[in-house]
């Protein structure tokens, strides 16, 4: 697309280029460049324990040597099953240094979910939070994985905090139990750092090599892994940098409240932040008190998050009189940003809250609102630099629709992935000729190039920024005793979020027990996928041929909730 075909060009914030030159370097080069440029600058802050860029690069080099001695070679998968912690950053770059492929996993996944994903990519080494390391070892030993390494969060804490966790008081014991667990017989990650640094002559990855497998849900219930190269991820970090010319290299403080195992948190925190020499303040989970406490110690300047986080933070800061004015950039993604949340945040913090758009398959950011006055509430913004877009007929992607008409959004650019891991059929459904990919989102482009999502083609529920595929939850429900049939739908909840809601058909003689259903479901799927509400019906609406009519399920449920239909 030529510059004159990009109607959004005039809406770009001052100084933002229409195109960028993608650095032809790997993510390893990215980190080493920052380590050279900002050697003494604090790279990581974990509850006050700091790691400089030079120390980070040194730890990465040692861990890479440790992984090499464990037999990891280029192309091997190294699975990370970790919350946000310094070891996560080190393990990520150490695996990449060897040319290995990082695979991120949510440590709160159930054994069933983890078994599928680990079996799908067959890792050589797994670096796992010690609380889940025994489960991970149980899964991967039969798969032939060489080693599971256990990571202790307390090991990364400042010494005093670590000692405090050992105090014989209930609160210390509870905190300790939340942070760490026994992993008998599993080698500790920290031992890897005792190795010398890897030989600088050891082969390095190139920008074309695969860096990451990132799992994303599937319509039929089984997740698939998006294959992202160093170039994809490096490009997205560079696009982000170009988007915000006002950022100060070496001068930003980024709060990592988003999980690093999620595509959004990974790019904003693990690669983009490292590329600008920022200080990354790592938080294992979003805790309002911890964030506000940290604001007084090391104020954030940049906060990537999801709307519920901004809302809770703004309310708490306002109530307690904590200033958020240091946060110059607040980038919201993973779900739509409700206007009232944007207004609340901006009234409390003073800075702008702007919405971006992306998907795992685009590393992830593809569109964003300009970080300036031209940002438009309710819109996902305009295409990032070097990102091409088309709006096409939702049934025939070869046909572009006129400006102002609804159509499926197609994307192409250096951040766009090449396909799914070992899934040619699913890749073919998404990746079109000439590198265009289908987003599954129906949009309208305005005359001046701003995009608004108006519909979703994918069967997807977005809750708290996480994607939930109904089939996966339905599968779990149908396996529970007393449930004959189940359908899962997303219902709008507060502030633009969606709620996972189940409609079930009970076997004869069974009563609806929501708690039992939820706890049964929790054994199969992660907590955020578990239905918040469960309703019983006599039968699901099915077509004559037996197909479940999910839209009708949703319509009937909405009618029932509105009181226009008697409850069963």
């Amino acid at each position, binding site marked *: 697309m030529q510059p004159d075909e990009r109607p959004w060009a005039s809406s770009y914030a001052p100084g933002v280029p229409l195109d960028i030159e993608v650095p032809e370097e790997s993510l390893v080069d990215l980190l080493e460049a920052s380590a050279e440029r900002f050697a003494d600058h604090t790279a990581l802050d974990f509850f006050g324990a700091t790691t400089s860029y030079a120390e980070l690069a040194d730890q990465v080099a040692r861990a890479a040597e440790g992984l090499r001695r464990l037999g990891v070679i280029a192309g091997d998968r190294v699975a990370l099953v970790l919350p946000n912690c310094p070891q996560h950053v080190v393990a990520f770059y150490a695996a990449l240094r060897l040319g290995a492929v990082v695979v991120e996993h949510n440590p709160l996944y159930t054994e069933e979910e983890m078994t599928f994903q680990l079996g799908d990519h067959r890792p050589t080494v797994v670096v796992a939070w010690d609380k889940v390391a025994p489960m991970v070892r149980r899964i991967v030993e039969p798969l032939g994985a060489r080693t599971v390494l256990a990571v202790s969060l307390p090991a990364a804490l400042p010494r005093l905090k670590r000692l405090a966790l050992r105090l014989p008081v209930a609160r210390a014991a509870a905190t300790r139990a939340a942070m760490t667990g026994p992993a008998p017989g599993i080698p500790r990650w920290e031992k890897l750092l005792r190795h010398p640094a890897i030989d600088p002559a050891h082969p390095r990855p190139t920008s074309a090599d695969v860096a990451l497998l990132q799992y994303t849900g599937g319509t039929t219930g089984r997740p698939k892994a998006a294959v992202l190269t160093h170039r994809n991820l490096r490009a997205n970090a560079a696009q982000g940098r170009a988007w915000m010319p006002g950022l100060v290299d070496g001068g930003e403080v980024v709060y990592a409240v988003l999980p690093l195992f999620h595509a959004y948190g990974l790019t904003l925190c693990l690669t983009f932040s490292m590329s600008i020499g920022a200080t990354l303040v790592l938080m294992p989970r979003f805790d309002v008190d911890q964030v506000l406490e940290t604001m007084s110690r090391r104020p954030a300047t940049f906060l990537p998050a999801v709307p519920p986080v901004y809302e809770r933070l703004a309310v708490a800061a306002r109530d307690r009189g904590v200033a958020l004015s240091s946060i110059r950039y607040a980038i919201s993604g993973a779900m739509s940003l409700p206007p009232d949340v944007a207004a609340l945040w901006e009234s409390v913090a003073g800075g702008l809250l702007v919405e971006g758009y992306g998907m795992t398959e685009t590393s992830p950011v593809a569109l964003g609102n300009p970080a300036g006055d031209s940002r438009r509430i309710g819109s996902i913004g305009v295409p990032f630099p070097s990102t091409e877009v088309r709006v096409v007929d939702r049934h025939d992607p070869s046909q572009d629709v006129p400006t102002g008409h609804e159509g499926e959004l197609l994307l192409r650019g250096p951040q766009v992935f090449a396909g799914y891991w070992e899934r040619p059929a699913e890749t073919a459904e998404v990746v079109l000729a000439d590198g265009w990919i289908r987003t599954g989102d129906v949009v309208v482009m305005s005359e001046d190039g701003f995009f608004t999502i108006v519909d979703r083609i*994918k069967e997807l529920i977005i809750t708290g920024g996480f994607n939930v595929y109904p089939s996966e939850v339905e599968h779990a429900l149908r396996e529970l005793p007393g449930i004959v049939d189940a359908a899962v739908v997303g219902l709008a909840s507060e502030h633009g979020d969606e709620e996972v809601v189940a409609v079930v058909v009970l076997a004869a003689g069974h009563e609806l027990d929501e708690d039992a259903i939820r706890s049964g479901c929790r054994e199969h799927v992660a907590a955020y996928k578990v239905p918040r509400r469960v309703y019983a019906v006599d039968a699901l609406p099915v077509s004559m041929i037996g197909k479940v009519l999910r839209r009708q399920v949703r319509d009937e449920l909405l009618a029932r909730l509105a009181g226009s239909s008697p409850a069963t």
Partner: protein
Amino acid sequence: MFAEARLSDGSRALIWDLLPGDREAVREGFEKLSEETRFHRFLAAVPHLTETMLDHLVDEIDGVDHVALALVVVDAAGNGVPAGVARMIRYSDERDAADVAVTVIDEFQRRGVATALLGELMRRRPAGVTRLVTTVTADNAASLAMLRRLGPTVAEPAGPNRLDVVVELPDHGPDDPESDVVAAAGTDPEHPSAAGDEIL
């Protein structure tokens, strides 16, 4: 009473009516389907067929308003191996319209099984049916293509990843050999179905 068919890989197949005695075979066949195939068939994650579903899918076949056919591939030793099922059910409130479903066990997909079944189903369709009205997943392009080859087709979005599809069938009656539009399109081994075998 069966029809013979030749699949796109040249293998022989027999198609005959599904009967109440086939209940266990249907149950077992379903267990062999991949999650994706099950999903495309029922538009939901269905781990197993329930007794209620089997009642409907097997016991309620009447050969008049509810026609169901099974295809068996004949192997080199002359043994029959079940490969797929196709069915058509007339709408009670719209006598000229019917819903349709074709299911092929994964290991037999892309060999023309669905095309052969659908061709026979068109010949055996309930008298007076001139339209197919069904719902498919929007990402199931091959199935949509197969439906389109049956006649003029309209597809409308019906919620996330769903399309409501209406196909106007050719004017001639089901007993007319010229109505064999699907067989003509796909069972010739020299011209295997472009749509392959997908699930409706």
